[in-house]
């Protein structure tokens, strides 16, 4: 889908004398300053070194912690190694699975809405005519995306307040309302879903819009002359260009929902009960409220495994140009 700049930009220049492709390494005796085999290393070292120290080392530390009994609330017990005890505990822990299931349910609730609204908005923004209004709407999509996630949660608490929230007022106009959104299980789940839809539909819309703009203009115009049906245009001309975006959206959104913390934490803290206890909230509570770092680390490592699978999938499906 995306012509990778590595192939288009760099390839023609690669055979140039001073820039040997990987296969033909420079002769060992070269004396030119800054053209040695190790040159890229010097450029990479600061970033890679930093990420090793702040990213990989803590991850390994979490892995080690996950094999220990590590309860900060009971430091006298020490932190002995206990093998797979934490993992067995996690795998047998109903509430861990419940929170993963809840996270999956959340994904399945918001995703279809975000996709449908996203495609609808993208089509409206792509449709010719009304250029000023279109530009305005396009720019406005950035606002939800940039809003601090925690502040989205604050706004959510105000909008979905039972007594003076505007959500109940607006629903009152159609004869509904009076819901105790954040006080009931279904209400709280719906409220965080609405805020998520608000924040992330623009993301879907922008990706689909980018896909639509890849349709060659001549083909689209010919098709518009050919058929008055918008649906036929969408199905036969535009759809193929939307598919790579769809893959990207599905994978990134699932990773993002596994990460989702700020907005939900501020709005509901996972409650009432466990109604909005998404996986990141749950692990945070085990680690920083119960202080059972061993168990929390085991849960986090399991989450990391899922994430790694997701990102391999993302890379496999979307960076074909590099992979091949």
């Amino acid at each position, binding site marked *: 889908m995306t012509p990778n700049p590595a192939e288009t930009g760099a390839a023609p220049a690669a055979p140039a004398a001073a820039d040997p492709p990987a296969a033909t390494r420079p002769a060992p005796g070269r004396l030119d300053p800054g053209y040695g085999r190790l040159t890229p290393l010097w*450029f990479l070292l600061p970033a890679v070194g930093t*990420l090793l120290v702040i990213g990989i080392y803590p991850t390994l530390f979490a892995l080690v912690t996950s094999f220990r009994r590590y309860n900060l609330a009971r430091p006298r017990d020490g932190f002995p190694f206990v093998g797979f005890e934490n993992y067995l505990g996690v795998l047998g822990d109903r509430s861990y699975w419940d929170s993963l299931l809840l996270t999956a349910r959340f994904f399945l609730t918001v995703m279809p809405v975000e996709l449908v609204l996203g495609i609808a908005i993208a089509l409206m923004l792509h449709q010719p005519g009304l250029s000023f209004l279109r530009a305005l709407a396009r720019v406005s999509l*950035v606002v939800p995306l*940039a809003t*601090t996630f925690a502040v989205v949660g604050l*706004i959510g608490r105000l*909008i979905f307040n039972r007594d003076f929230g505007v959500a109940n007022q607006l629903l009152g106009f159609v004869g509904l309302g009076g819901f105790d959104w954040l006080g009931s299980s279904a209400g709280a789940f719906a409220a965080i879903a609405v805020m998520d839809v608000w924040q992330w539909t623009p993301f879907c819309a922008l990706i689909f819009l980018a896909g639509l703009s890849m349709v060659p203009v001549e083909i689209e115009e010919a098709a518009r002359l050919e058929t008055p049906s918008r649906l036929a245009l969408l199905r036969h001309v535009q759809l193929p260009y939307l598919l790579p975006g769809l893959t990207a959206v599905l994978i990134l959104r699932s990773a993002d929902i596994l990460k989702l913390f700020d907005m939900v*934490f*501020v709005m509901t803290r996972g409650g009432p009960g466990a109604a909005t206890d998404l996986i990141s909230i749950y692990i945070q509570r085990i680690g920083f409220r119960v202080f059972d770092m061993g168990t929390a680390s085991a849960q986090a490592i399991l989450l990391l495994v899922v994430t790694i699978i997701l990102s391999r999938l993302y890379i496999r499906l979307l960076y074909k140009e590099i992979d091949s």
Partner: protein
Amino acid sequence: MTGRSARLLHALGLLVTLSFTLFPFYWMVSSSLKEQAALLASPPVWLFRPTLANYAEIFADQKVSGAILNSLIVVCTTTFLAVCLGTPAAYALARFEFRGKRDLWFWFISNRMISPIVLALPVYLLALQVNLLDTHLVLILIYLTFNLPIVIWICTDQFRSIPRDLEQAARLEGADQFTIFRRIYLPLGVPGIAVSAIFSFIFSWNELLYALVLTRRQVQTAPVVATSFMSGYELPWGKIMATGTVIVLPVTLFALAVSRHMVRGLTMGATK
């Protein structure tokens, strides 16, 4: 459907989109201008006499101004470091071929996916051991885990678009790679570097989880303080929404400045 009614429908759809994307933002700003009585009115009022009292109150509150200062220190430093460390790596990825390049690339991209809770647990324990909890430094460093990849990604793209002729000419003059990077790539790459710095700023400014678990009193950032108002019986909604507005407004302006690159920033370049 006739052309006219189609046009009307299109306009209507766009207006609905606009109000959908802007309403919560509008509600936050308008609530920040209400007095407590108007805020607690049921049903909510849409027309009211605006007041700046909430803003006066939060700017007088040392907790809020201190938190904004903390946020600025952390975010600017981490962004600066991300650019300093990330641009050379981007140059290497853009202009050299070496073994393991692809794996390195994927590792950078994978960082986009990883849940902050995975790192928050061990980093908390490590920071506890070396007495780094509640310092600017620990936040600055941990924010690099997501800022560095974004800077590297965007700048690699940018550096690749710089024509090679310039580099060849410099080489004939005897310039080494470090000079070429400093004198050609950095100045010509400024647009991409600026975009990546803005993304780095936005992501760090908006971050809550790390800031929540790694700080106590001293270095609470703006989002942490904004959420800390959410306790007690009668919430100071005007103050909360005014703080929210103060936090969100600068990043929104930044985001509007890079709106063309928004998708690229959020997908790590998989789509443009």
